[in-house]
């Protein structure tokens, strides 16, 4: 097996569950790595990046982020549907940049990815810095304060996504009532979060949070059963 083929498959090879390469390929790469110090070094470096990435904290993006992404998508769709036109200044540096074709090797891509990840994390950390009261509040919201909270949130998000897809078809009054109720529960949850942030072992507020999550899930289940 040649170095180029090994380099192309290294990322899949390092995946703990090798869905994308066969057992034969894995054996061939193993053999190659024992005889090629350069590829072995590259494999070690990629492994370190992967381990470091796995240890990075998870950040729940703010709800407004989806709105921004949706706006960008809509803008792109509108642009695609609009009649084609020549950019006013396509000959500038941006035009030059767009006309270029770039190719990167796997190590360059990995390094670039690591830098991008670091910048994103630094950006998020900066946004959620303790100097900003409102954003500190967001940070408190995203922290997990119950052992089972991640699973609860995943389930609630799944249900909410399903509802959001059809909420536009609801009666406006019902939609407003639904939003109001969910906001009320979220307010109570946020109050609990603030208290638990200072005292994570406060059993009363842990219990309160659990009840509130059950209430939230109950409202979502009701809406599903009511077939809105």
């Amino acid at each position, binding site marked *: 097996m040649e170095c180029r083929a090994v380099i192309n498959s290294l990322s899949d090879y390092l995946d703990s569950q090798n869905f994308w390469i066969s057992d034969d390929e894995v054996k061939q790469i193993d053999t190659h790595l024992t005889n090629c110090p350069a590829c072995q070094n590259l494999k070690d470096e990629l492994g370190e990046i992967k381990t470091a990435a796995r240890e990075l904290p998870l950040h729940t993006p703010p709800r407004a982020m989806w709105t921004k992404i949706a706006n960008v998508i809509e803008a792109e769709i509108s642009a695609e549907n609009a009649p084609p036109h020549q950019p006013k200044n396509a000959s500038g540096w941006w035009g030059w940049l767009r006309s270029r074709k770039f190719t990167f090797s796997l190590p360059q891509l990995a390094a670039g990815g690591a830098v991008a990840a670091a910048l994103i994390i630094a950006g998020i950390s900066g946004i959620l810095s303790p100097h900003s009261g409102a954003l500190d509040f967001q940070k408190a919201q995203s922290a997990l304060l119950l052992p089972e909270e991640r699973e609860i949130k995943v389930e609630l998000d799944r249900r909410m996504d399903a509802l959001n897809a059809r909420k536009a078809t609801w*009666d406006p009054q019902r939609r407003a009532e639904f939003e109001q109720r969910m906001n009320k*529960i979220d307010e109570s949850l946020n109050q609990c979060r603030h208290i638990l942030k200072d005292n994570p072992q406060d059993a009363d507020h842990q219990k309160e949070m659990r*009840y509130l999550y059950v209430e939230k899930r109950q*409202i979502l289940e009701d809406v599903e059963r009511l077939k809105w």
Partner: protein
Amino acid sequence: MVKESLAPGDLLPSKITEKFLSALAISFVVATALAYSASAQTFSRAFPVPPGTSELEVVNQTGTIKVTSGANTSRILISARYSENAAKIDATQNAQGKVKVEVIGQGAVDFEITVPSSSDIDLLSYKGAIVVTNLAGAVRARITDGNIQISGLRSPRVEAHCTQGNVSFSGEVLPSGSYTLKSFSGRVDAYLPTNADFKLSAASFGPGGMNLGAFQMRYDKQTHQLVEASHGAGRASIILWTQEGSINLHRKP
């Protein structure tokens, strides 16, 4: 200047206006009632059910659901009243005999349902009220905006839960029973027999707090928001919760 005097039977101008307005109001009420009865629709269905194992599920959008036990032990009788342009009522029975009544769309529908007393029932309404009386099967009642009133029960399992409204339960507490009463922003009232044997877990996070003095209990935990306590041998499980309302434990008269 001489004032004109009124004879005893004569009406003052203000009294004439009052009488006229009263007559107008009565006419309006009568006309509205007649219009409603003219446009109201009724729905009725009867389903044969296996004795002792009947099951009923009702999903209503707006309106009252009243369920009580009937003399007939092998039939579920459903009657409903709704306005002309209200939603569609769909009542079906599956191969196992379970009856499901579902309202699709909007519009108020008021149900009156009689079931064999041992029936298991599952009721859901978005807005309105739920009233359950004299049953011995499992009861699950859920309403987002409205009250739940449960009385005369001998059920092994009760779950009553409203988001905005009050929950009231009055019934026997069976030794291995499980009773959960919850309201996000309303009162939770439980009327229990003096000799009820239960383990209580109560949580009230609102300003209304808890009034549990009707029973002399052994307290395992007691804060101003949470209580865990037992009465008797502590066999049945009772869970009471409110976020913004109050919890009230009463002795059943």
